[in-house]
């Protein structure tokens, strides 16, 4: 009713003005358009060059993949029509589906797939592991190619069907030949949508239209796998940086879908009967407290172990996500609710905090009140909330905490520093990962404990490194689970990081949208608009 109230006088005035001023110079939309507020603004168009989730999501709009992960965590053929694996498991031969085309009208060829995989293997961690096993990738014909391995790599299909950053998207060969450390500029894609670069206003708007040449699979959608049937003509990503404005725009019907909303705005949006607030991400996100293992006091394992006894996931997650329906405690280094997760070795983190035990370990470590620098990014609410709660918990057991606030752009620069504390160094920072990035030892970044060549914090644990290698070579799920459990037990002993809980960021959309695909990544296919 409200929109009619506004609409009628608008129509009348618009009719008069249109007569006076002439028709709009370019009526930009015809057909059905979904207006979507993404989690961040789209800045980079190369999903291999960056691991940013917003660029990954863009990638899923404009590119397709050879394989894709389904809701049972199994890689399923996507662009691939059929494939076979040799008996010695050293040769994989893939044949592409019929009629696959890029958005420039050119057919997708074996050479495109090989070049795309080659570029991805230079950037992605799992891709790099795969590259060590790959002997040769060669085209058999235009639609068939093979990957010949030097040694077995049981994760090959999981790797090329990887769900989250970096996803091995298939690009035209001319684009994929770009140096892996240089950003591509050509958005020609193989996916269900076509990106309109001319209408792109970085920081504000990204426009996609249905790719008429895309041939979806016939299966129903299941996470990134199955049929990617586009049921609207156009999708506009309208980035609205201010959450209050975004909520008001959704309430007023100016936009159709808000990808991630802060928990404090959920009750307000739930009161609107035309809006659905939902949890469509079955994996959620996992909070991480990361130590700098090079500097005192956290170069001493007893100090890291001490914190396991005081980090309280309930307090942290309440601060991060509010209502308990938006979070759960997760006493695993893997995403809870997935096959590798368990609470093996997590006893110190579970249950009631034990400050006495923590103090005893701190005493054993010989801590003498040295300043402990915690980094927090105030422009990242999920990170800032974790940092503030943990800083308080640390102070309560007598640690001399210096919580340094900055923006995320500064933090990610600071965390690269290995300098001592008095020269800009740090002891702890906080972040979070999408659940898809913590599923197992091969994907879990903070578990890659290779020391100074690894991720920031530079945790070193040779036992975990060896077990990771074993996990990647494991032949079946039972063996994987056994090794993953051993890795977790060791991780709760050497403590390269502390999981701080698992939370979801709810999504909200107008009731006029139907067919939203539940998945850890937001997908715009299969969605209809009344």
């Amino acid at each position, binding site marked *: 009713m409200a929109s009619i109230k506004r609409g009628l006088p608008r129509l009348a005035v618009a009719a008069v003005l249109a007569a006076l001023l002439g028709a709009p110079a370019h009526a930009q939309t015809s057909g059905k358009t979904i207006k979507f507020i993404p989690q961040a603004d789209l800045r980079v168009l190369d999903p291999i060059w960056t691991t940013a989730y917003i660029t990954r999501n863009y990638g899923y709009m404009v590119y397709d993949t050879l394989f894709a992960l389904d809701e049972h965590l199994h890689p399923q053929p996507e662009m691939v029509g059929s494939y076979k694996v040799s008996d010695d498991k050293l040769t994989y031969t893939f044949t592409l589906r019929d009629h696959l085309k890029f958005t420039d009208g050119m057919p997708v060829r074996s050479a495109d797939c090989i070049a795309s995989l080659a570029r991805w293997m230079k950037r992605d961690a799992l891709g790099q592991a795969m590259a060590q096993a790959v002997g040769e990738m060669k085209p058999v014909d235009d639609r068939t190619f093979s990957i010949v391995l030097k040694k077995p790599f049981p994760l090959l299909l999981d790797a090329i069907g990887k769900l989250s950053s970096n996803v091995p998207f298939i690009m035209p060969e001319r684009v994929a030949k770009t140096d892996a*450390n240089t950003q591509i500029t050509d958005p020609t894609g193989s996916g269900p949508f076509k990106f309109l670069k001319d209408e792109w206003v970085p920081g504000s708007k990204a426009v996609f239209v249905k790719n008429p040449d895309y041939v979806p699979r016939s299966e129903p959608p299941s996470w990134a796998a199955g049929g990617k049937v586009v049921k609207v003509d156009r999708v506009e990503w309208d980035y609205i940086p201010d959450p209050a404005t975004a909520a008001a725009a959704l309430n007023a019907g100016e936009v159709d879908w808000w990808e991630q909303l802060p928990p404090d705005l959920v009750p307000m949006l739930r009161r609107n009967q035309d809006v659905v607030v939902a949890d469509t991400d079955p994996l959620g996100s996992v909070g991480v407290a990361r130590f700098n293992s090079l500097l005192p006091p956290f170069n001493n394992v007893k100090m890291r172990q001490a914190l396991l006894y005081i980090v309280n996931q309930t307090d942290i997650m309440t601060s991060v996500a509010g209502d308990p329906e938006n979070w759960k405690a997760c006493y695993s280094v893997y995403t809870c609710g997935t096959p590798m997760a368990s609470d093996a070795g997590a006893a110190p983190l579970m249950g009631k905090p034990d400050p006495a035990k923590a103090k005893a370990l701190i005493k054993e470590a010989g801590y003498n009140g040295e300043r402990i620098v915690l980094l927090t990014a105030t422009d990242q609410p999920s990170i800032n909330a974790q940092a503030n709660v943990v800083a308080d918990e640390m102070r309560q057991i007598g640690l001399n905490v210096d919580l340094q606030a900055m923006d995320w752009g500064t933090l990610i620069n600071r965390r690269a520093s290995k300098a001592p504390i008095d020269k800009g160094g740090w002891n702890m920072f906080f972040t979070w990962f999408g659940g898809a990035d913590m599923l197992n030892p091969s994907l879990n970044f903070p578990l890659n404990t290779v020391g100074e060549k690894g991720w920031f914090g530079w945790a070193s644990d040779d036992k975990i490194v060896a077990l990771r290698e074993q996990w990647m070579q494991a032949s079946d799920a039972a063996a994987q689970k056994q090794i993953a459990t051993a890795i977790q037990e060791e991780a709760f002993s050497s403590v390269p990081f502390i999981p701080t809980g698992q939370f979801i960021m709810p999504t909200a959309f107008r009731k006029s949208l139907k067919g939203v695909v539940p998945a850890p990544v937001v997908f715009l296919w299969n969605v209809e608009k009344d």
Partner: protein
Amino acid sequence: MFAYLVRRLLATIPVMGVVALFVFSLLYIAPGDPAAVIAGDFATAQQIALIHQKLGLDEPFFVRFGHWLWAVLHGDLGISIFTNLPVTQLIGQRLEPTLALTLTTLVVTIVFAVPLGVIAAWKAGTWIDRLVMIVAVAGFSLPAFVLAYLLILAFSIKLDLLPVQGYVSFRDGFLPFIEHLILPSITLGLVYGALIARFTRASMLEVLSQDYIRTAQAKGLANDQVLLRHALKNAAVPIATVIGIGIALLISGVIVTETVFAIPGIGRLTVDAILRRDYPIIQGVVLLFSAAYVLVNLLVDVSYTLLDPRVRY
């Protein structure tokens, strides 16, 4: 006059040069690394270092400054580190919304604030004066983002009269163009309008106490003639000065207003670039802002010659 204009325009060149050097130096010493932002959370130090090198961020200060200055002198503001698009294109995309917002605000506030200031001075000490000053003080005191949310709540959510956010180009229809500018203009204009109203009142009060005003009244001139022809014209020079100075308020205010109302203007471009350390964009927009400010001051100086015949350049 022409010689004066040429001299002033030439004088902007060293000003812009100093601004450019200052901004470049600040960005050079500021913490943060765009390569780390680009690479994302999972990147290793080696991957970041490679991107850093590719972007030329490891070159010495004077080499980078020299490259940038040389390009600027050729009309090239560089390429955005993140989007790979020319900075001139990015600024071009954002110029129209910001110009539309600032010009609308400028016109609306001057149209309302100057008469309010004149009336307050004319009715000094009465309830009208007090009411105008209460509104002005409130306008000065209310943070722009609070006002913005209140306006959205009232006019977009409750009354459903105006859109919550966004910008529609005038090429897509005059009505939606204006509809999308009303609330942002009020938000941006309130502080500015309060400033102008208070200065107009103060300036008018001073002029209204002059002997020639009494003489004009004694001659039996109508109030409007005394106010507009004699008083306002003589009070106009300081008012014009404040209008010019106030442009700086608009430039800074535009950042908050564009963020709250999701207007894709220069203000948001600036904030986003700062948060990501997209140096070429920051340098480009700061140059643009300083050029705009220098130009506005020049226009204000020129306006003195129109407002006061005694002023000659």
